[in-house]
C-alpha cells in the first residue's frame, strides 16, 4: 500500500467521520490545528482499526503529529503486521 493511498484514506476518515473540512487538511497540518485533542485521537485510532484493520497504540501518536506522519505510522504498522 503506497503512502498516497493511505494518506487519502486517512483524509476520507477525517472528513466523513470527524467533520473536518477537506480543504483544511494537508500532510503538514497537525491534529491540534484541526481541533482534534487526545480524546479525538484515541477515537481516530479506533476508527482506523475498525476501517483499515491496522492497530496503532495510543502512545505512538499525539495531537501534535501531522496527518502525513500519521499516514506513515499506519503504513509502518501495516508493513510490520504483514512481515
Amino acid at each position, binding site marked *: 500500500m503506497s503512502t498516497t493511498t493511505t494518506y487519502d484514506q486517512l483524509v476520507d476518515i477525517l472528513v466523513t467521520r470527524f*467533520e473536518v473540512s477537506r480543504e483544511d487538511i494537508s500532510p503538514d497540518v497537525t491534529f491540534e490545528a484541526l481541533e482534534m485533542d487526545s*480524546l479525538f485521537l*484515541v477515537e481516530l485510532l479506533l476508527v482506523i482499526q475498525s476501517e483499515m484493520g491496522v492497530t496503532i497504540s495510543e502512545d505512538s501518536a499525539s495531537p501534535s503529529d501531522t496527518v502525513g506522519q500519521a499516514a506513515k505510522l499506519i503504513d509502518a504498522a501495516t508493513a510490520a503486521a504483514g512481515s
Partner: protein
Amino acid sequence: MRRPDVAVTGLGLVTAAGIGTEASWAGVCSGVSAASRNPELAGLPVDISCTVPDFNPNKLVGRRASLIYDRFVQMAIVAAREAVADSGLDPETWDGARVGVVLGCGMGGLRSYDQQHKRMNEVGPQAVSALLIPMMIPNMAAGHLALQFGATGPNFVTATACASGATAIGCALGLLRDGTCDVVITGGTEAGVLPVVTTGFAQMGALSTKRLDAPETASRPFDADRDGFVIGEGSGILVLERAEHARARGARVHARLAGYGASDDAHHITAPDPEGTGVTRALTAALADAGVSPAEVDHVNAHGTSTPLNDAAEARVLRRLIGDRAAVTSTKGVVGHTLGAAGAIEAVFSVLAIEHSTVPPTANLELQDPEIELDVVAGAAREHKSNVAVSNSFGFGGQNAVLVFTSAA
C-alpha cells in the same frame, strides 16, 4: 441579616413547541399540543411523543456537535446560549469563578449509551467509541456549559427524576443567597425519547394509550378522560443573579425567584401519596421561604402530568392549601412530559406568565374532572396578572420540589 434577593435575568428554551423562548411561549399559549407520531417508535406499544422539531445539532450547536455531545447536552447548550445572551451578561468579561452552573437531568445520554451498546454487541468491543463516557454521563450537561461560558464556579447536576430541573433551580438559589455565586446558569435538560425508555414508561402504565391515533389529543392534564402522559424532550435554562448584582449593571429583570421547598413522600417508588402529605410540606416550605401566604398565590404551573393519579393528588393539595383563587395550568398538555427538564421548562413558563400577565391554557382540557376543584385555564390563554407564581414538580422516588416566583416590580 436580610437574605439577598435573586433575580431572573435570562431565559432560554428548547421544547417540542419550538426552539427558543418566543416560539415555545407562543406554542403553549396557543394550547395546541405538540405531540405527534414518532417514526423511531413505530411498532412499539406507544409510538407518540413530544419531540423537538427540526433540531439540527451541527447547525444549532456547531461543527462536530453530534460527535461530542449527546442530544441532552446539545439542547442544554442551545437553551443556555439563548439565556446568557438574554441576560446581557458577557462571558468574555465576567468573573467566571463567581458563576455557577446547576442543571437537572433525570437520565443523561441514554441515546449514546444505546448506540454504543448496540455496536459492542453487533461488531465487538473494538467498535465502542472512546467518546462514549463523556457523551453519556449526566453531569456533562453542566460541565459543557462551564466550557462554553468559562463558568468556573460550583458546577453540578441534580437527579430527582421528573423534579430534577426544579431541584437544580432550588440549589442555585442557595448558592446565590449564601454568597457563593453572583450568577448561576440553571435549569434542566433531557433527551430520553428512545424506544427502550418510552417502552419502559409504557410497561409501567404511565403513558397515554387511548389516543395513539390522534396524538395531539393524548396529553390532557386535569381532563376527566386523561389516561397518562406523553413523553417529551427539551431544555429550559434560567440565568439567576443576585438582585444587587443585576441592579448594579442595570439588567432587565424578568421576575424574582423568591422561594424553594423540597420534600419526599416516602410512600411508594412511583405512585404519589394520595394524601399529598409530602407535596403539602414542599409547597408550604416554598411559600414560607418566599415570605408569601397561600392566599397570595395568583398562578400555579402544576406538575399536571395527565396521569389519573398525579393530577387528582396534586389538585387535592392545591385546593386545600391555595383554594380556587389561583389560575392553574399544566403546560405539559402542549410540550409533553420532559422528565428531568420539566421543572426547568415550567419555571421559565411561570416567569413568562408573570412577565406577560398571561396564563397559557391547558391543552385538551375539554371536560374537567369533577374531582379537580380548581380554576384550571382551558381553551385559550387568559389575561391574568400574577404577582406570585408557583411551579410544582414531583419525581419518581417521591421527590418533590416547588419554586415560587414573584414579579420583578
